[in-house]
């Protein structure tokens, strides 16, 4: 079916399938008239009304945003409201209307554009984005001057197709029953993607020219599992997807039935299923999917939310809220993994960032920043359900130096009479090959290990996973990778140190049988993947898995291992599960 020409391929940003009419959301440029006016007083009244109306709308969006997105992300709207009261801006607009006697829309456009043009000249991405925010407010005032309705009459049950989606758009759309999001730009961390995931709506982003190829009211299918958008599907495609939807909803019912049950193999081996947490908004989703706890909180996300290094109080607030919500489950907070390909608020250009200043290296070089986080995590641990994990560990001294800082923080908190869990568990990510070979020594220093597959694979195979040219060399199931994972797990068991996996591999339904066979007993994956993985695990026989792993450890190429795990999947996993992927 993939050979048909009406299929667009993008990034699968939020899972699910929907069939609905396209709603093209375009921010068309308003025609601005510079006509001369006769009645200045009338124009000034019109301006005041437009400002008041804009303020009313933004207040509404602000309070909606606080509900839907949380206070931090809503802060942009507060600044927009302040602009409507800006004494300098408003008085110069009014002065110019009186002296130039031209339509307010022209003066507003001209006056605010002075600021946005300065901002868009900036080399800072951040400033460019802020200029979009100010553009947003300008357009809102102009629409209201023309007494046009700002929100297009978006109807229920449509798939929104747009070039890019602003925070205020996402908030507005969330009020009606949107069936899916399709965007030209944006990746997995764009606003559309994050909101779609937290609202459980399928989304495909980064399609480049979807807004040109899709027409208003076209019937489209959005496949958020595979990142596909099908325009005006033929009967065959429609039938296929209607069946898939039917299967999905039946499958969902089945998943719902087992949600309270453990991830138990047919011969009684229980696997612990934990969730990875990206943004705090996904919390309800995690609880709904019955994760036993959180195996990984990616705290570097906080930078995106706050756009700066969050201070101790803000971090404490976030961490303790998560810990409370997941109680009595456990939450594993990973220290900031910044640098590499991850967000770094400092402007730094390294020739080879993935081998550069990232993770624990950056933290130990910035003890003040690191201690701020350690203190916040310790303070959030009063219910004794918080663990702390260090990223990018390559050598023993990095753990020892970190422990010194943790001890310092404990002492400080003790002196300040602040409570914390004195026995808080400390763990490390195993994602650098050097650490994978020293499990015994690390086990003497720490309480648990978590395998980060993405980085481990790229460092083992010397392949940049973001580089298309060598993407073929990025072999997840390279024999050396499989054997290393086996080594980590068995060494962990030998020295009584818990091993889990939180990388992408842990959520891959083809990889899971192999991983469990290698002895892995804890998986931490995105919450949405838990129910179907649990279903798969509940259909497996543990003895078969051990056999599969033994076989794979003898194989010499990735091709053979890949073939072997796919054959296993096809033979052992029930048909209904297979057809979903």
């Amino acid at each position, binding site marked *: 079916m993939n050979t048909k020409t009406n299929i667009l391929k993008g990034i699968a940003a939020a899972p699910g399938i929907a069939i609905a009419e396209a709603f093209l959301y375009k921010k068309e440029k308003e025609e601005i008239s510079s006509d001369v006016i006769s009645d200045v007083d009338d124009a000034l009244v019109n301006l005041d009304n437009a400002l008041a109306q804009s303020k009313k709308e933004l207040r509404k969006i602000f309070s909606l945003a606080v509900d839907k997105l949380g206070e931090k992300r809503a*802060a*942009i709207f*507060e*600044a927009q409201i*302040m*602009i409507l009261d*800006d*004494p*300098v*801006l408003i008085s110069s607009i009014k002065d110019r209307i009186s002296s130039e006697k031209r339509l307010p829309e022209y003066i507003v456009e001209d006056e*605010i554009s002075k*600021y946005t043009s*300065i*901002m868009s000249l*900036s080399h*800072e991405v*951040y*400033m460019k984005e*802020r200029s979009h925010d*100010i553009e947003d407010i300008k357009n809102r005032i102009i629409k209201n001057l023309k007494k046009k309705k700002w929100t297009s009459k978006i109807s229920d049950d449509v798939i929104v197709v747009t070039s890019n989606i602003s925070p205020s758009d996402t908030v507005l759309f969330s009020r009606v029953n949107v069936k899916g999001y399709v965007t030209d730009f944006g990746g997995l961390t764009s606003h559309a993607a994050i909101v779609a995931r937290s609202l459980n709506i399928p989304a495909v982003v980064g399609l480049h020219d979807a807004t040109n190829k899709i027409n208003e009211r076209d019937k489209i299918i959005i496949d958020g599992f595979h990142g596909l958008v099908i325009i005006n599907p033929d009967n065959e495609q429609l039938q296929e997807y209607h069946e898939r939807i039917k299967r999905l909803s039946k499958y969902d019912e089945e998943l719902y039935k087992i949600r309270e049950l453990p991830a138990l193999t047919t011969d009684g081996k229980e696997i612990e299923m934990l969730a990875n947490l990206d943004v705090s908004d996904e919390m309800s989703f995690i609880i709904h999917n019955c994760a036993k706890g959180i195996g990984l909180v990616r705290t570097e996300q906080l930078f995106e939310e706050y*756009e*700066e*290094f969050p*201070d101790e109080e803000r971090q404490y607030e976030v961490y303790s809220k998560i810990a409370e919500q997941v109680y009595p489950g456990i939450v594993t907070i990973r220290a900031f993994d910044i640098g590499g390909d991850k967000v770094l*608020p*400092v*402007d730094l250009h390294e020739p080879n960032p993935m081998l550069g200043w990232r993770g624990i290296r950056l933290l130990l070089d910035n003890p003040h920043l690191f201690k701020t986080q350690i203190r916040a995590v310790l303070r959030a641990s009063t219910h004794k359900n918080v663990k702390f994990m260090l990223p990018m560990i390559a050598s023993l001294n990095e753990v020892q130096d970190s422990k010194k800082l943790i001890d310092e923080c404990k002492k400080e908190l003790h002196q300040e009479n602040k409570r914390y869990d004195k026995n808080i568990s400390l763990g490390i990510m195993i994602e650098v090959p050097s650490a994978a070979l020293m499990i015994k020594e690390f086990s003497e220093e720490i309480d648990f290990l978590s395998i980060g597959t993405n980085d481990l694979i790229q460092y083992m195979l010397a392949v940049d996973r973001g580089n298309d040219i060598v993407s073929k060399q990025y072999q997840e199931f390279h024999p050396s990778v499989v054997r290393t994972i086996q080594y980590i797990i068995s060494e962990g068991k030998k020295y009584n140190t818990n091993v889990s996996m939180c990388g992408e591999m842990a959520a891959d339904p083809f990889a899971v049988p192999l991983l469990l066979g290698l002895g892995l007993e804890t998986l931490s994956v995105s919450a949405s993947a838990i129910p179907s993985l649990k279903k798969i695990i509940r259909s497996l026989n543990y003895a078969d898995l051990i056999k599969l792993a033994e076989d794979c450890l003898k194989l010499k190429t990735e091709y053979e291992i890949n073939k072997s795990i796919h054959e296993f999947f096809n033979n052992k996993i029930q048909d209904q599960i297979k057809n979903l992927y």
Partner: protein
Amino acid sequence: MIEKKVKIVNNAGLHTRPAATIVKLAAKYKSDFFLNKDGLHINGKSIIGVMTLAAEKGSEIVLTFDGADEEQAAQEIVDYFNRGFDEM
């Protein structure tokens, strides 16, 4: 008139949140308050103006305060800059 040179010391620079706080602080005082950087002369009571100042970490800004309560205004606002907008 009081003139003070300040340096941006927090990592994220003068972004939306500190811009809003500066304007709110300035609004409490009667004195005129301006920020001068790279030839830009920005009224500190204007949020859109302060947002336009692309002041990243390490950049220097000259602040001027002029009016009856200039001393108190200067003290509070300069202090806020020196605290790294409470983000240190």
